[in-house]
């Protein structure tokens, strides 16, 4: 029940991110602003959604999920309703900042709550919740597009903003953190290393093992981002972007095909690898997934000039990348306990923002060398390094940390 409520809340905020693109052409047509200037509103949304998760997580751990989701729902609703009345760029920016705050609050709370409620299936629970964010938009793409066409983008912003916000607010009353004894005390699977001790956030960031996880998240995140975020210029540079590709009876240009497949696989991978990690252990799964990612990027470098392989391998790369959103939060909670799971996972989540700051440096390498080769090799190498760190360093180290925490308690 708690997982279902979390997933529905995630579905409700999915439009805030995934539905935005449908509004941009109409905003541009009505106000005549530069497209890049309009998209800055979305960038602000993403930044506020990403960087404030630990603060929102702290509120979740201190005051419970209900109040944070309630305020998150309010912000989501207010953000989009403001978008419906906005007549200046700064108004859109402010609205999207508020919506970003709301989306981050809902995201961090739902993932944190899933980690607390399902200690025995933490990977799968976090994965399903994170996937709800991506998959949710599939349900409302058609109605949103339809309303934009028939009633205009402002009506769509208003109605969907109000509807989504209200649903989140209503659901917030059903959401609560588990009480002691309400959930299993821990996992029975020997492959999954779990601590019984609850570390406070300030304690967590003093643990060197947290920084190893942070480092791994940053290098895997950056490696994936370097390729996934740059796929379009890469496709254009290697001249495969406009070539039609036929797969499973569907024909599209290579870049459109890649973008479509990538979106689906990026969602599927989160519960899939989360579930695998519940069975074979987090580090073993990280080893497999990050190695797959590294090999996938390297193969994309070798064979990507063929449009067919470009589509297949970019899908493979996305599939092996998206699981960071289920593996890292569950590993973090397994190590540092469930009591402050939302804050601790949120602290680790900021590694995604740090990873994004590394990507322009890769573009600098690309400019310097004149080709994407070095970028591919760095990204593949980063993932292989992370996979080795997972199995050779993180796994034995976490065992030791968890064992010493048991002794201490």
């Amino acid at each position: 029940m708690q997982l279902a409520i979390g997933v529905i809340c995630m579905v409700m905020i999915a439009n805030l991110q995934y539905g935005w693109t449908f509004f941009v052409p109409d905003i541009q047509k009505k106000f005549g602003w530069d497209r890049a200037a309009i998209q800055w509103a979305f960038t602000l949304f993403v930044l506020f959604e990403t960087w404030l998760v630990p603060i929102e997580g702290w509120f979740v751990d201190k005051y419970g999920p209900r109040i944070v989701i309630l305020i998150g729902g309010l912000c989501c609703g207010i953000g989009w309703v403001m978008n419906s009345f906005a007549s200046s760029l700064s108004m859109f920016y402010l609205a999207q900042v508020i919506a970003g705050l709301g989306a981050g609050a809902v995201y961090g709370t739902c993932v944190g709550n899933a980690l607390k409620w399902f200690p025995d299936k933490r990977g799968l629970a976090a994965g399903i919740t994170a996937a709800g964010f991506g998959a949710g938009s599939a349900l409302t793409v058609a109605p949103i597009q339809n309303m934009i066409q028939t009633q205009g983008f402002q009506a769509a912003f208003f109605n969907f903003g109000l509807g989504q916000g209200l649903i989140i607010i209503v659901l917030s009353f059903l959401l609560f953190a588990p009480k002691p004894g309400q959930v299993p005390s821990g996992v029975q699977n020997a492959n999954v290393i779990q601590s019984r001790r609850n570390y406070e956030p300030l304690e967590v960031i003093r643990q060197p093992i947290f920084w190893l996880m942070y480092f791994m998240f940053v290098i895997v995140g950056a490696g994936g981002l370097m390729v996934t975020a740059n796929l379009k210029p890469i496709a254009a540079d290697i001249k495969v972007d406009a070539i039609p590709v036929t797969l499973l009876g569907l024909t599209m240009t290579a870049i459109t095909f890649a973008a479509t497949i990538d979106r689906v696989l990026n969602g599927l991978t989160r519960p899939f690898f989360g579930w695998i990690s519940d069975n074979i252990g987090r580090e073993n799964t990280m080893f497999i997934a990050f190695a797959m990612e590294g090999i996938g990027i390297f193969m994309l470098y070798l064979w990507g000039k063929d449009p067919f392989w470009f589509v297949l391998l970019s899908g493979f790369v996305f599939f092996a990348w998206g699981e960071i959103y289920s593996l890292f939060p569950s590993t973090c909670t397994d190590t540092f306990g469930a009591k402050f799971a939302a804050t601790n996972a949120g602290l680790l989540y900021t590694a995604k923002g740090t990873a994004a700051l590394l990507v322009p440096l890769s573009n600098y390498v690309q400019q310097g060398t004149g080709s994407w080769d070095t970028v591919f090799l760095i990204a593949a190498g980063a993932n292989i390094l992370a996979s080795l760190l997972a199995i050779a360093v993180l796994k034995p180290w976490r065992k030791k940390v968890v064992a010493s925490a048991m002794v201490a308690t």
Partner: protein
Amino acid sequence: MPTILPRRRPVAYPVVHLVAIPLVLLLLSALVDSNNLWPTSVLHALMRSGEIIANAEMGPGRIWPERASAAPAQHALR
């Protein structure tokens, strides 16, 4: 007799790390992008990082179809 006080634990330094690491990367990114550290360059680098996450999560080219995540200068090289 002098009282030996317990050594105070440095509470703040890991928080500083959590802010300093992204901040250093942000400044580096701004420097690489525009050869200066004017507030506008730093803001631009920060926005670029948001753009990168957006492009990765939304599917390449959906948010910034014209220039995706690569620097405009890089396109001029082609």
